[in-house]
């Protein structure tokens, strides 16, 4: 474990160093600014929640394409209940609605043996239609401002680390020591401080809770009996049954937790990231969460990495298209590393492919001064795609994931 941790820290350091250098070269200060880091975290949270939702479901052996629909249900419920009864009840309603969607998925896939993908897609379609229908009724009843938008939800207050990041505690406003350092633009130091300040200051409590779900999920799934049994339902359900594990119960639990987390992710979008529900607010984040899950090889830490990557790219494109231009250099650097690695391993074909791509990227960097807007908007998706295709890691999905299971498989 020790060596794994040090390796991780080392890689993170290299990455930071690389980004610092690129910032220095291109002058794109937003790459590591406080605002970018803060926005990246905010944008990552729904992905993290969706990814963790997928984790619980798929570890229990149920493929959950329906995450998107469960997020939609959660977002809508967050806006509806949140605007009436305040943000906290709104979040609880989001969890409940997500879980209701999940219950549907669980009944279909676990009890009736419907194909997991079919059921998931059906839930996505149904959720989108259902919330539009409900919104229209509320609009015509006069309680909503439009058929695609809920009234505003009261905000949840923000806080940060004391002394360093300017939090407030019991009426005391702490100083904010990090921001000035971050704005000095010192090489490496300001970059690191900027990121730390961004993710420790002006935080919503919900963000904090969501991030804590990552270690909590790991703890539940890998350190408790419940987790071991849940995972056994996804790896070898027949073996689990032969040892007296109630496989159906585990699968139901996994899918319901999944829906609750996805619903919370949707509620987060409506209540924390914005201040009302808006149609199409989820915008594919359920799928991105699923991608983060795959990228993270069905592990909580990996989901965080995948979500952070997407959040970072998304934050950059929202804030400053010049930084996206600088991001191309980062891609070049990563490709150069891959060329180096593949040459060392003697994989000449993939090395030359990477080399050609790196060359094209360099040319693109110098040929294009300003990226067209459409391309900028696409950046988070391109980045996700690129990293997933290049990571070329050994993916290991749960062995019985997506397979219908019937009790009495023993006989």
């Amino acid at each position, binding site marked *: 474990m020790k060596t794994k941790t040090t390796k991780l820290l080392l890689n993170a350091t290299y990455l930071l160093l690389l980004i610092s250098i690129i910032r220095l070269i291109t002058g794109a200060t937003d790459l590591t600014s406080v605002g970018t880091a803060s926005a990246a975290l905010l944008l990552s949270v729904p992905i993290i929640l969706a990814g963790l939702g997928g984790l619980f479901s798929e570890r229990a052996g149920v493929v959950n394409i329906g995450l998107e629909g469960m997020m939609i249900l959660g977002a809508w419920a967050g806006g509806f209940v949140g605007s009436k009864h305040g943000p906290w009840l709104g979040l609880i309603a989001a969890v409940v609605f997500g879980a209701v969607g999940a219950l549907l998925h669980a009944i279909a896939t676990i009890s009736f043996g419907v194909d997991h993908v079919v059921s998931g897609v059906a839930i996505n379609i149904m959720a989108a239609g259902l919330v539009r229908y409900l919104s229209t009724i509320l609009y015509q009843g006069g309680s909503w401002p439009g058929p695609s938008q809920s009234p505003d939800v009261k905000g949840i207050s923000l806080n940060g680390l004391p002394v360093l990041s300017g939090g407030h505690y019991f009426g005391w406003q702490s100083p904010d020591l990090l921001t000035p350092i971050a704005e000095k633009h010192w090489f490496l130091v300001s970059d690191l401080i900027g990121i730390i300040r961004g993710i420790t200051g002006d935080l919503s409590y919900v963000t904090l809770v969501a991030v804590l779900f990552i270690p909590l999920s790991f703890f539940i799934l890998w350190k408790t009996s419940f987790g071991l049994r849940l995972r056994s339902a996804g790896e070898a359900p*027949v073996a689990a049954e032969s040892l007296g594990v109630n496989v159906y119960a585990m699968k139901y639990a996994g899918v319901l937790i999944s829906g609750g987390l996805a619903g919370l992710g949707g509620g987060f979008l409506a209540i924390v990231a914005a201040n009302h529900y808006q149609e199409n607010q989820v915008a594919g984040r359920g799928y991105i969460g699923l991608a983060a899950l795959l990228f993270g090889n069905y592990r909580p830490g990996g989901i965080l990495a995948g979500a952070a990557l997407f959040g970072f790219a998304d934050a950059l494109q929202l804030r400053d298209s010049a930084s996206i231009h600088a991001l191309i250099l980062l891609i070049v650097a990563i490709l150069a590393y891959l060329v180096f690695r593949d040459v060392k391993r003697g994989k000449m074909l993939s090395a030359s492919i990477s080399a050609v791509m790196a060359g094209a990227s360099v040319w693109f960097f110098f040929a294009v001064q300003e990226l067209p807007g459409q391309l900028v908007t696409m950046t988070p998706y391109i980045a996700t795609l690129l990293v997933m295709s290049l990571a070329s890691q050994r993916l290991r999905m749960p062995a019985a994931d997506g397979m219908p299971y019937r009790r009495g498989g023993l006989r």
Partner: protein
Amino acid sequence: MSVAVELRHITKRFPGVVANKDVSMRVETGTVHALVGENGAGKSTVMKILYGMQHPDSGEILVNGTAVNLKNPNDAIELGIGMVHQHFMLADNFTVLENIILGAEPQHGVTIDFKAARAKVAEMSKAYGLDVDPDILVEELGVGQRQRVEILKVLYRGANILIFDEPTAVLVPQEVDDLFGALQGLRAKGMAVIFISHKLDEVLRVADDVTVVRAGETVAEVKAKDVTARQLAELMVGSELPQPTTHGDTRRAEVTLALKDVSIPTATGSRDLISHVSFNLHAGEVVGIAGVEGNGQAELVEAIMGLREYTGSIEFQGSTIDHMSVAHRHDLGIGLIPEDRQRQALMMNSPLWENRVLGHQRGKPVMRGFILDKKATIEDTKRIMEEFDVRAPGPMTAAAALSGGNQQKFIVGREMSKAPALLVASHPTRGVDVGAQGAIWEVLREARTKGMAIVLISADLEELVGMSDRLLVMLRGAITAELDPQKTTLEQLGSAMTGAA
């Protein structure tokens, strides 16, 4: 010694079949008790009943002297009954430790107490000589080690009555020795071990007592030291054992198959896979190919069937077939019983009638013009099932649901349907029960009398010597000897195969 388990007159019916008519057995503590019987005799059903996976229609189960009602495996586990399944029930992506404790995790607050679990597993490993690293992923283990994990799993739950369902089926000889060592250890610790098998030599090696079941009934309870393998086998089948023999000389003048200097060179140019093989096979003759596996027998079959490129020439009924495709050779009248029936002869998840089509998809009764004649195929499948005694509910049953012997009888029946002039039979009775073995021999005998030529490849030397008119010994891809089976002992054949003679 006390009685650990007693079964009294167990009956179990399934729709259409009676799996157990009247099975009784007494297993004493501190003994290894073998339950033997042919495939389909009802051994597995008895054990599933004892493990709570199925419920008897009538009869009594006594554990440690008290009558019990087992509703599910949990009840059995609580009574100290453990099952080591034939098909391992392990999660590959879990560690050995996780697999062992699953469902019975020691708790430490809200977490699993991995430390206590590891200590307990280490202690059991040591006590029973079942050495395995608890923190390694199961996917990295070999078959023998996986079985150890299964045994540890059962012991971890405090079992003192252990059921082993055909435990040696998947093991190599060295692993079998290890397993038997472990069984002796369990016996010495006062456990009752129930050992299900149809490999009689193994049963006699390891068991103290033997219960024989036939057609769902207990037919004998004997001490292992009082019987021979042959006696046990006859008890199992209920009659004298079938013998691999042929009668008289049925050889005819015409040559059915002629190989002339057939070789299969390797791509790398090293030693040929088979080199300069030549022989003639007459109608009504059985030629046996003897050899240690991997000496070119499989490649020889592939050459005759056209599955592999070769040099030299092969003639069938007087004309060359070198340029012909596999399908063409089949259509000419060459039948094949491949060595691996599950992978090469059957679609395991398809019904029997669809399997009937395999290799016969170009003519009657399967086809009517360009259209598959499902009705006729089903009818013909029924005919095969009747003629060749394939025991299965019907033509709609998936091939996977049949026992090995019945699968093989079905394959033999399918190949005989076109009355081939030549049959290439590769291990035709491997892994099938005694009854099916006898039936298949009978089919081959009859076909020989009618003039079919047979190339017989087998690892069962008795079968080779008994069924063949002529023996060819293959060693490193070449034919190194021709023997007369009438004048050859198994020892002589064995040493010819290894090149010692």
